[in-house]
């Protein structure tokens, strides 16, 4: 059978760095094909060449048995790609929040009554009825029901993703690429998505998913291609492989997928007390009460956007939003209401922010400046306001060795490092003065499997040394493996609390979706 997509020895480099080397792969029509690999392994580059964003340096892409070129002649934009039957659902959805589901789907391919065909395209009135008919047919066929009239901002993330998929189907896409499709979904929404993907395949569509979650690959895909360091290092039929084998191929060495259960916590004084905390805003907090004591890890699980970001904001920047906030927060015994961020951090608080690109790093700056960020006023890095670069480079060289940061260069720009190495810089910095209270928000997001193992070990070590850790994560595996207590957050409230060993993935998942309270 002719493959739906075939890569023949594709190569692509950026500024002399090889992102893809001799990539060859075949995707069978009507199957779900998973592309897995660590961050920076080149899977996104390969998909962007298929999608037309990048042009290969050499090699060929064949679609349904026909050769396909790069951006010069065949397609130069997503619109061109979709015209060729290739569509992509990005990790961050490309939807206009105040518009309705229907308008989002029509955006760019609006139809109008033939009566107006003499008008320039952009001036023709939109005829939604015609589109609605076609959409209803597609929705029935694939089992993707959406309330067309609902505004996107009122819909759940799962439904928004469905709209993204419908957008592609409406444009007659034959090949659907989904980039990390489950990153923002609850376990229930995830399994629902997988059922829908399966149905798409049965009706002849081809689905390619890019992911790093091996469990999901095992449960949904038919075939899997493994990328490592810009090359294809393996191709497997799911039926004939195991999760351990995929992990080993992906990382290039054996990895432990589950951290060992740590010994029971040595509880000490509370490091964080949150009492009756409420925040009046569009996504607020409602009567949040909890404690973190030194020597324990408290996990906050929940789908993103249920108040975690707001909680983190209040902990770290207590002076912002003072007007709309009630209740109080104590960190290491001190009421934080009047403290600046600097003072909060000076209490002995380490923070691993969820969006390290935005909140954790200076991307255009060398590794050593990023290590210094937040430590610049401490001895020995500065004296009387003058920086000491010799001390700094000593310390950073030591950190680079200890944390195995690659490339091991003080002057490498942080933005050019892989996600895992970037995160290691953040952790090396925040752990430098052994924080008494550590806030780790999505500490392993976008980080490769090898680095996940390392980061988990570091967090457990901090706990053993007597730090209190607040772990905010939407990865259930991570929450379950690390937390001594688990709080489930939904819609700005804490819905449930579990002790280690009491919680199951299913019980958590249901509460994360707000189903049980």
């Amino acid at each position, binding site marked *: 059978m002719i493959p739906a997509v075939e890569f023949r020895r594709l190569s692509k480099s950026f500024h002399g760095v090889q992102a893809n080397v001799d990539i060859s792969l075949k995707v069978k029509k009507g199957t779900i094909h998973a592309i897995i690999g660590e961050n920076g392994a080149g899977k996104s580059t390969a998909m962007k060449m298929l999608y037309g964003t990048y*042009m290969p340096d050499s090699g060929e892409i064949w*679609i*349904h048995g*026909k*050769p*396909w*070129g*790069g*951006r*010069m*002649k*065949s397609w130069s934009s997503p619109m061109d790609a979709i*015209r*060729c*039957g290739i569509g992509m659902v990005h990790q961050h959805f490309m939807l206009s929040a105040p518009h309705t589901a229907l308008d989002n789907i029509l955006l760019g391919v609006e139809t109008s009554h033939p009566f107006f065909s003499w008008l320039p395209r952009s001036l023709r009135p939109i005829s939604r009825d015609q589109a609605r008919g076609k959409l209803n047919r*597609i929705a029935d066929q694939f089992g993707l029901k959406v309330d067309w009239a609902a505004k996107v901002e009122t819909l759940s993330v799962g439904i928004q993703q469905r709209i993204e998929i419908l957008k592609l189907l409406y444009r*007659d896409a*034959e090949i659907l690429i989904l980039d990390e499709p489950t990153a923002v979904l609850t376990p229930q929404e995830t399994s629902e998505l997988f059922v829908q993907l399966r149905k798409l395949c049965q009706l*002849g569509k081809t689905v390619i998913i890019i992911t790093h979650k091996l469990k999901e690959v095992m449960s949904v895909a038919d075939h899997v291609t493994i990328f490592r360091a810009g090359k294809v290092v393996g191709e497997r039929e799911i039926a004939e492989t195991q999760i351990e084998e995929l992990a080993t191929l992906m990382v290039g060495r054996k990895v432990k997928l589950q951290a060992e259960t740590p010994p029971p916590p040595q509880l000490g004084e509370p490091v964080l007390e949150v009492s009756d905390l409420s925040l009046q805003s569009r996504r607020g907090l409602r009567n949040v009460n909890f404690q973190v004591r030194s020597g324990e890890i408290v996990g906050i699980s929940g789908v993103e956007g249920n108040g975690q970001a707001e909680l983190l904001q209040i902990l*770290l*920047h207590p002076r912002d939003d003072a007007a709309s906030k009630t209740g109080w927060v104590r960190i290491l015994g001190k009421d934080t209401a009047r403290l*600046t*961020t*600097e*003072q*909060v*951090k*000076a209490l002995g608080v380490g*923070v691993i*922010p969820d969006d390290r690109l*935005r*909140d*954790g*790093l*200076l*991307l*255009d*700056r060398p590794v050593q*400046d990023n290590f*210094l*960020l*937040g430590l*610049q*006023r401490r001895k020995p890095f*500065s004296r009387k*306001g*003058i*920086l000491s670069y010799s001390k700094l480079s000593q310390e950073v060289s030591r950190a680079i060795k200890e944390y195995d940061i690659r490339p091991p260069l003080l002057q490498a720009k942080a933005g050019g490092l892989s996600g895992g190495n970037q995160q290691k810089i953040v952790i090396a910095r925040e752990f430098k003065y052994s924080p008494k209270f550590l806030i780790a928000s999505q500490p392993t997001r976008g980080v490769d499997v090898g680095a996940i193992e390392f980061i988990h070990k570091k967090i457990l070590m901090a706990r053993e040394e007597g730090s209190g850790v607040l772990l905010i994560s939407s990865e259930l595996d991570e929450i379950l493996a690390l937390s001594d207590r688990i709080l489930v957050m939904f819609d700005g409230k804490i819905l449930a609390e579990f002790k280690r060993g009491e919680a199951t993935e299913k019980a958590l998942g249901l509460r994360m979706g707000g189903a049980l309270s």
Partner: protein
Amino acid sequence: MRLIEKLPQVFKPIISVLVGLSLGLLVTKIAGEDPWNVLGILVRGAFGSRYDFGMTLFYTTPLIFTGLSVAFAFHSGLFNIGAEGQLAMGALALAAAGIQFPNVPAFLAPVFGILVAVLGGGIWGAIPGWLRARRGSHEVINTIMMNFIAAGLSSWVTLYLLRNPHSQNPETDSVGAHYLIRQFSFFDGAPVSMAFFLALFAVFVVWFILWKTVLGFEIRAVGQSESAARSAGIDAAKMRMIAMAISGGLAGMVGVGEIMGNAERFRVGFSPGYGFTGIAVALLARNRPFAIIASALLFGALHKGASDLDLETENVTRDLALILQALVILCVSAEGVWEVLGDRLKILSKKKWFNPAVSVEVSEDQASGLKTKV
């Protein structure tokens, strides 16, 4: 293209400058002049004699200050278009102090004068800095507004409070004799004073603050990523206010060369747009303090060299300096365009990817195939 990639960072702006100047001289060709002749006049005008070179340095001095001013604000992520107003306020403050306190001891007066100029410009810069930090109003709008206010305010103060009764011109009385700093006789009367060395010293200080101190690190961190800086405990609002105050102070020092080293008084409209040219200076220097010296010298030389064009050529005037400045800036900012251009050429040269016939055939086939299926 390949060659350009391999050259050290320093050469890129130099090449851009050369391309920009060549394009500018091509314009004179169109206007009916001999480009080589024009180039000769420019070079002779700027460097031909001790006096000419002195005038070039005289124009270079304020451009170093304003270039530093714009660059400093830029490192904190702010675009200071208000150097023109800040330099006027610095100079006005200096003139006022020099008139009101003529009896400050001679050894103290220059230092006192410099401090007053820095304060005058600094306060004028700190106001939009404060508005941005505390009120969130955009500094571009506010600094432009402050330029108009400074122009109006300085005219009013000059005409109604400090007017020189013996002159027809809108200028103040002269400042106390203790304030005057000496000019170098080497330059045959061109008003080059110690202010030039003050500018070089300011370059060093700015470099030291930005790269060697905690303050500079924090200011640059805010400029790179406000949210990352805030998460690290840096007070971004405070840093921006400080940066704008320093930026304004740097611009204010233009007054030192003008009043203490040249005119001895505040003259309304003494600046031929130093504050705005400072933006170009900083842009060409990529906000690097030491590069600003070279960049300011280039713009100073253009300004001086072009002033002779009025006399020596028939078809071009001193406004050519503006055209040359504009073209240099265009070429400097067009570096990205060159890269894209090179990319395009590379693509075209790969015949494999340039074969429209195949793509049309496939896409039609594809489209019809899909339609029948759905």
